[in-house]
């Protein structure tokens, strides 16, 4: 697999680490145990197009949100996580 890092360009799979489904959002402070349980444990586990967190740890150390097809491994989009490039926020 090759991933086009939005910062580094196309790189090989070995530079990246997979975390998992990017759809679940961490509940806000004070959320119920049930909500957090859902976030931590339950997965859609989609066979097809899915959105995932990957880490370019072997490169620029950016966390990325990647749309990828789990049936074909084809990647349709790669974008930085919300907090990457924060230096240009509001600029």
């Amino acid at each position, binding site marked *: 697999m090759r991933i086009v890092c939005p910062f580094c360009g196309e790189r090989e799979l070995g530079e990246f680490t997979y975390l998992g489904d990017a759809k679940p959002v961490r509940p806000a402070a004070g959320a119920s145990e049930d909500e957090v349980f859902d976030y931590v444990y339950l997965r859609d586990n989609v066979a097809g197009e899915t959105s995932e967190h990957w880490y370019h740890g072997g490169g620029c150390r950016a966390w990325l949100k990647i749309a*990828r097809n789990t049936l074909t491994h084809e990647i349709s989009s790669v974008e930085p996580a919300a907090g990457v490039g924060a230096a240009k926020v509001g600029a």
Partner: protein
Amino acid sequence: MKYSIFSLARAALSGHKAWQRTWRDASPKDHYDVVIVGGGGHGLATAWFLASEYGIRNVAVLEKGWIGSGNAGRNTTIIRSNYGLPGNTGFYELSMKLWERMEQDLNYNTMVSQRGVINLYHSDAQRDAYARRGNTMRINGIDAELLDLAAVRKMMPFLNFDNARFPVQGGLLQRRGGTARHDAVVWGYAHAASALGVDIIQNCEVSGFVRDANDKVTGVETSRGKIGADKVGMAVAGSSSRVAAMAGLRLPIESHVLQAFVSEAIKPVIPNVMTFGAGHFYVSQSDKGGLVFGGDIDGYNSYAQRGNMPVMEDVCEGGMALMPMIGRVRLLRQWGGIMDMSMDGSPIIDKTPVDGLYLNAGWCYGGFKATPGSGFVFAHLLARDEPHKEAARFRLDRFRRGAAIDEKGVGAQPNLH
């Protein structure tokens, strides 16, 4: 026809024209007491135990392709019961005991070979962790031995003892562990279950669940029509989330790709099953002579049934680091299976919140060794509506309760289990 050397010799006289189908080619009936979705090892074993142990013979096993086409026929054929945590230890030993009588139970030679499984250790910390685990095994009546370096060297003189990055220090040995011929397990259960009246229906893909007014599952929609059932059991490793979603369920499972490899056949060099403790590599040698080996999952969600080169290289690096004698042995085939990785690395065998629907899932990459045990306890659950005592911790609500069975201690991240 009963299988034996005598029937084989008799058949030879007539040019083997007398042999019949190993299992009946059944067409679906309108209704069964139990429908098992999934014609892999677990599904077929469940059917056989339902018929043989619980007297429930009006059973169908539905398989979307050909039986054994999933992980049952893609694994590295290892059997063992060397687990360390309550829940796993007893269950896998139950399974091991069933392996030990399988061939006689089924009248089918599944080549269960108790050649020993050794987990090598390379540090004091690893030794201590294995000591803890081995003692758990012994306390549960399971055989385990902690070998020191000299004993390992004697048993496997071909390992790299002299210039290894992480020298072997010893190993945890379970002599009763070993291998079995994976396809034969599928065919053996199919053969035996079919003989007891179980319908094995291939090319029959489940597309939905039939629900009654109370939302109870009363059957399945399939590519071969609607099939009614009092109870439906899911044993669809690699498709657990997809099938569960048809019933509106989300599971604590992610599906990952695990690669496996086999080398060209060579004369026997590896006597047992070995796990490298300083890298991702485990190996045994098949009776045919191929080195059957594997390592870690690729690490990303996948239903593609194929992996990528980094893991392939990682596995071979582990192999070469452990035993540089395999350098000139050639890798012959590489393939991938879909592993339903649960959030704690241990399986789920339980009723689901949907009445009439039962779940057997989340085997990670340990499903093969569990085959008979899984079938046994799942049959128990389906027959009695309560978990078998050796599966009592494999409940679906354990994640919510905080009662995870996490052998690796890595938490709710499936690709680390």
